């Protein structure tokens, strides 16, 4: 994983609650055995007027001009602004793969579904929880004639808007550490392999039926 670097990006406002992972990447794309290439099919059913199929070239497909991703103001956006319970539904990691492949690095929402929230960190995406009032305000600004740009500082845990306003955010220290250094979390856990082996030995005594 690449280390998460500070950046300034355009905010794409997706004004919906309960956006589920099937809306983020529809099920037909789950048949892939790859981890990449999902970006062109991110939000496929909302983004295009026809139905996408895996392996198909997306460049000639009719676009839904009413959908935010197709709005020229938000071209190249790297920050997704949305509402409550983002990423609910299926646990498919294809959802953060698609978001990352498209170029989103940060998500701003009121709340997330648990599994999706974890999956984001595993893929170098920083999902931030902000107060509903802040989210409302950001929607108002992002919907203006000029796109809203935000500077993201992971080290300092702050977002800076174009007008100089600073919005602090929370992030779990372990998650922050892994993101900042682009760490392989499995490698981190394997540093404790002796503790794992010791646990297994205890467990073998306590619950031998799990080792039969």
């Amino acid at each position, binding site marked *: 994983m690449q280390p998460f670097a500070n950046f300034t990006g355009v905010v794409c406002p997706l004004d919906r609650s309960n956006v589920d992972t099937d809306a983020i990447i529809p099920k037909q794309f789950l048949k892939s*055995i790859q*981890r990449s290439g999902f970006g062109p099919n991110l939000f496929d059913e909302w983004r295009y007027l026809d139905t996408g199929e895996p392996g198909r070239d997306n460049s000639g497909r009719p676009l839904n001009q009413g959908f935010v991703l197709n709005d020229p103001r938000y071209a190249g956006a790297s920050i997704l602004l949305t509402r409550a319970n983002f990423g609910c539904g299926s646990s498919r*990691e294809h959802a953060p793969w698609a978001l990352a492949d498209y170029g989103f690095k940060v998500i701003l929402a009121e709340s997330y*579904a648990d599994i999706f929230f974890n999956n984001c960190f595993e893929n170098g995406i920083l999902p931030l929880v902000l107060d509903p009032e802040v989210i409302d305000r950001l929607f108002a600004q992002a919907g203006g004639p000029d796109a809203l740009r935000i500077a993201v500082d992971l080290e300092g845990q702050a977002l800076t808007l174009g007008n100089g306003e600073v919005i602090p955010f929370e992030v779990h220290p*372990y998650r922050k550490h892994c993101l900042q250094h682009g760490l392989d979390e*499995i490698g981190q856990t394997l540093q*404790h392999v002796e503790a794992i082996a010791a646990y297994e030995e205890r467990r073998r005594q306590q619950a031998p039926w799990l080792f039969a």
Partner: protein
Amino acid sequence: MGAATLYDKLWDEHVVRYQGDTALLYIDRQLIHEVTSPQAFEGLRIHGRQPRRPEANLAVPDHNVPTTRRAAGILDPVARLQVETLERNCAEFGITLFGMGDPRQGIVHVIGPEAGFTLPGTTMVCGDSHTSTHGAFGALAFGIGTSEVEHVLATRCLVQRKSKSMLISVDGAVGPGITAKDLVLAIIGEIGTAGGTGYVIEFGGAAIRALSMEGRMTVCNMAIEAGARAGLIAVDEKTIDYVRGRPYAPRGELFERAAAHWRTFHSDPGAVFDRTVHLDGGSIKPQVTWGTSPEMVAPIDGRIPNPESMGDPGRAEGVRRALAYMGLTAGTRISDIRPDKVFIGSCTNSRIEDLRAAAAVAKGRKVADSIKLAMVVPGSGPVKEQAEAEGLDAIFREAGFEWREPGCSMCLAMNADRLEPGERCASTSNRNFEGRQGYGGRTHLVSPAMAVAAAVAGHFVDVRDL
């Protein structure tokens, strides 16, 4: 030591070590299916890692398998490659696989308990959100992403933060004809789809204790639809009787020793939860969802609510959007909604008890002419075999239902079983999201008995009035 919740006990027994406020949690069991595992195995290969304790995993293809003409194999080449990739990965890494031709094949959350691979007092994961199903056994079971599948394969552990605890107590007895599905839909209607976010929910109360193991699995299956990390139900003698004698369960003296330990997996009297919700079991009626989220649910004698009279503008907008998608108008009686297709199956409601309940309603009746397709998809090979031994397949066929091979099928429409745009379905599955059962498809979640009742009447109807 104060009084502990069931969740506390499961958590404490599985902590390998703490690091700050996170724990390295040991995972006893992992289930694997074809959709969320290929990239995990690929990750192992890239890093030159081997699975730790391969025998603690069990794999099965279910999402992509056809429910017809199994002998012909999978026609869709992309889906076929995915299933073959699972076969290759399991062979390479020494993981037990119930392959497509195996009589034990079925939906991952049906075969785990059926094989006795799901055991009380364990931690269990799967790259699938409905892993919450196994919480019915007093196991801490939750869905994970593919990176975490790889993590568990390589280390048997996950870095976890303890959730908050919620008790949902369904008090009293439910009325006759009310099923586990009605109960859990009523619960989600009450707390909402984000109501359980950040929590592990323990379901308790007399109405939960009265449920069979199948019913308890239905309830825990949908805990994820309430946003919870996991659902739990305390171990009792029903749990232990269900597990006894299953192929992967311990035997003889070891079983008795295990059972003695399993009996400790319940919340102690006086245990404190972060939140407690009470529901009156006696007031629960058969439930039907009308929108695009499981919380958009009403009793069968209810009507579709009016977004214009909702105080919360965000909520009103959500309902407006849902009604537009569903092709329904506010104020419509639930019993006036007419499905085009009927699907009985999925890890929520495809076990033998579900099929018995459905067959009891189907017996001697006919599917209405207005229904284009009514299908029953058993959850697993053993469920199918048992149902056929009891003659349930004949009852379904005579009534006009198709009787299929086991798999996920039209629960998520990854195989050929799907709705056409605009089609409306009475479904026993767990998600009514936009496009879930096919692009533009409209899903109404119900119990198996209510699905058959709708098939027979041509519209939703209170199964108790048939």
